């Protein structure tokens, strides 16, 4: 899926928990996330804390989009 969007000419960042799957589906920019049922959140935190966490991840994804890569890259 990620590959199709990349093929259409759009830079794409894949945010997902199981990064090896992201690698096999051919994503080039990968940002690892928290957990399967809540990739961009953590129900153990307060709403405010969660937003900080989520913002951090999204900013990392934007950074990835602004970064030139030559090969599949995981932005830890």
């Amino acid at each position, binding site marked *: 899926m990620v590959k199709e969007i990349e093929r259409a000419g759009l830079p794409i960042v894949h945010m997902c*928990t*199981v*990064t*090896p*799957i992201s690698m*096999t589906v051919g994503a080039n920019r990968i940002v690892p996330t928290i*957990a*399967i049922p809540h990739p961009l959140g953590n129900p153990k935190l307060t709403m405010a804390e969660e937003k900080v966490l989520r913002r951090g991840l999204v900013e990392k994804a934007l950074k990835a989009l602004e970064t030139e890569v030559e090969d599949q890259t995981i932005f830890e």
Partner: protein
Amino acid sequence: MIIVTNNPDVKEKYEGIRQIEFVEGGYKDVLIRVRDLIFEGHELLTHPLMGSVKPNETPYRSIAVSRHAGKMDNDNAIMIAECMQTFEKFAAMGRRDRGRNTPEWLLEDFRYIDLTLISSAVDYH
């Protein structure tokens, strides 16, 4: 180890000997549960597609994972994903209704084969 299964015969044989996680549901539900356990860091011990009985024929599935949960194993995650893909492929062929209209005598055989296959792995380890 934990045996994830929807096969009552497996439950009956290993109850009290091994940890059983019984899944109310089909072949795919067992795959999904195992996938989630892998994501939680349990190690996959048996191949999810064991046996030559195709996933669109038998409604039963038993898969062993480790009790211990550590860091998620990447190869396991890929393997379960590939198995789910293979399952979907056979499901899309839509030949059989995976047990819904299968006569009891045949279901019995499917349960028996699933039991003996998982036993071939579990009993030696």
